C-alpha cells in the first residue's frame, strides 16, 4: 500500500511537470464553454431534439452533456498522453526502474489520471451549465446541475482510465488516438445511421454511446457498467502488454 502511494505520488509529480496537462485542460474548458454556448443558442432557436427537454424546460446540465462531445476529446488527449508519452519519449524505461511492478505503475497512472479528469470534469460540467443557463433564459432550468456535473466527472474519470489502459496496450500516441476516436467518435454514428436494431445495439455497447446513456439516458447504470467494462478491459490489456514486452 505504501508502495502504491509512492507510485501515485511520482505519477502525480510527473503529470503536473510537463506543459501537456495545462494545454489539455485549458482546451477542455474552452471547448466546453464554446460548445455549451452554441448548444444553448440552438435550444433558443428550437433546434434541439425533444429528448433534451424535461417538463418543457432544458436543464443547463444537459447542455453541458451535449458540449461534452467536443470537450471530451481534450480530456482523452490528456489521459492518453499521460501514458503514451512514456513510450514516445522513452521515459517508460525510467518509470519501470522506479516502479518495476507493471501492474502497480499502471494502477498509479490510472489513479492520477482519473482523479484529475474527475475533478476537472466536474468543473467543466459546472462551467458548461454556467455558460448555458443565462443563454437558455426562460427556456432553461438549473435543476440537477450538480448531479449532472458529478456524472460528467465520473464519466471522464472512467474514460481517462480507458485511454491510459489502451495507451499501455498500444504503446504509442498515434495508434492510441486513432483507436479512441474510432471507438468514441467515428464508428457509433456510422452504426446508427441505417437505424437497424442490431447495429444500434452494437453502437450502444461502444464506450461513447454507453457514456451518453449514463449521462442522459433512461438506464444510466447499464451505460456506466458498459463504459467501466471497456476501461477494465483496456487496463488488463495494457498490463498484459507491459508485463510481456521488454521495455
Amino acid at each position, binding site marked *: 500500500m505504501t508502495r502504491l502511494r*509512492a507510485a501515485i505520488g*511520482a505519477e502525480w*509529480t510527473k503529470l503536473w511537470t*510537463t*506543459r501537456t496537462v495545462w494545454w489539455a485542460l485549458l482546451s477542455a474548458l474552452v471547448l466546453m464553454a464554446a460548445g455549451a454556448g452554441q448548444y444553448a443558442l440552438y435550444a433558443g432557436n428550437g433546434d434541439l431534439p425533444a429528448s433534451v427537454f424535461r417538463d418543457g424546460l432544458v436543464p443547463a446540465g444537459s447542455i453541458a452533456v451535449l458540449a461534452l462531445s467536443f470537450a471530451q476529446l481534450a480530456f482523452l488527449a490528456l489521459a492518453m498522453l499521460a501514458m503514451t508519452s512514456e513510450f514516445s519519449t*522513452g521515459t517508460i524505461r*525510467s518509470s*519501470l*526502474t522506479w516502479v518495476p511492478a507493471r501492474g502497480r505503475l499502471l494502477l498509479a497512472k490510472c489513479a492520477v489520471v482519473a482523479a484529475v479528469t474527475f475533478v476537472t470534469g466536474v468543473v467543466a460540467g459546472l462551467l458548461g451549465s454556467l455558460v448555458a443557463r443565462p443563454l437558455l433564459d426562460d427556456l432553461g432550468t438549473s435543476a440537477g446541475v450538480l448531479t449532472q456535473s458529478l456524472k460528467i466527472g465520473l464519466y471522464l474519470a472512467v474514460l481517462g482510465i480507458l485511454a491510459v489502459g489502451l495507451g499501455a496496450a498500444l504503446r504509442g500516441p498515434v495508434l492510441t488516438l486513432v483507436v479512441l476516436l474510432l471507438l468514441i467518435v467515428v464508428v457509433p454514428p456510422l452504426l446508427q445511421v441505417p437505424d437497424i436494431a442490431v447495429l444500434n445495439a452494437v453502437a450502444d455497447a461502444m464506450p461513447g454511446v454507453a457514456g451518453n446513456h449514463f449521462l442522459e439516458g433512461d438506464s444510466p447504470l447499464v451505460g456506466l457498467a458498459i463504459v467501466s467494462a471497456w476501461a477494465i478491459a483496456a487496463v488488463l490489456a495494457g498490463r498484459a502488454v507491459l508485463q510481456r514486452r*521488454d521495455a
Partner: protein
Amino acid sequence: MTLEKLTKRFGATVAVDGLDVEIRPGRVTGFLGPNGAGKSTTMRMILDLDRPTSGRALLDGRSYSAYEWPLRHVGALLEAGAVHPGRTGRNHLLAMARSNAIPVRRVDEVLELAGLGGSARKRAGAYSMGMRQRLGIAGALLGDPPVVVLDEPVNGLDPDGVRWIRGLMRGLAAEGRTVFVSSHLLSEMQVTADHLIVIGRGRLLADAPLAEIVAGHASLEDAYYQLTDGSVLS
C-alpha cells in the same frame, strides 16, 4: 550481484548466451565487448526491463523487482535519453524520489554532486548530452544505493566530466559499493576498473582482474583485441 546462466534470445539471435558471473562489491568492474555483444541487454535484464529467456540476475540473492524500494538498492544509468524533454531535471528527480520514498533533500544533494545545480530548473530538452549524462548519474545516486550500474557513463562528457566520473566511480567502490560499468573506451577502463568482464557475441570471454588481463600485452587494447578476435559482428 550474480548473473546465473543469463540468456536472452531475440528470435533466432542469441544476444546474451549463458552468462555466469559474480560482480563483487568494493571494486569497479568494467564490462567490455564489441558493439552488439550484449552489454546493454545484460544491464537491462539486471534491472528487470528485459525478461531473460533463461537464467537470472540476482542482487544479494533477490531479483531487482523483488526489492520494496529498488532505487535504494541499485542505482542505474541506462540510456541517458530516458527523461521527458519537457520536464526540468529537478522535477524528474523529484518524481523519481517520490516513487521510492526518498527524502526530497536528497534531490538537491545529488544535483549538487553531479554539478547540475545551476541547470536543475531548466527543461531537460535543452540539456547537452553531457548534462543529460550528469542528470542520469544524479538519478543513479539518488537512493544512495550499494550497487551502481552504469551503461557507457562517459559518453558525451567533456574532459572535466570524464575525470569527474572516474573519481566518482573510484570513490563509490572505495566506499564498499558494487560498481558495474560498461564502456567501449578501453583507455578509460584501463585507468578506472579493478576487474574486467569481457563478452563477445553474448558469451563470456574473460572474467579476471585488470592486471591479469593486461599481463603480457602492451596495453588493455592489445589484450582486448586478442580476446575479442572473431567475435566482432561484421
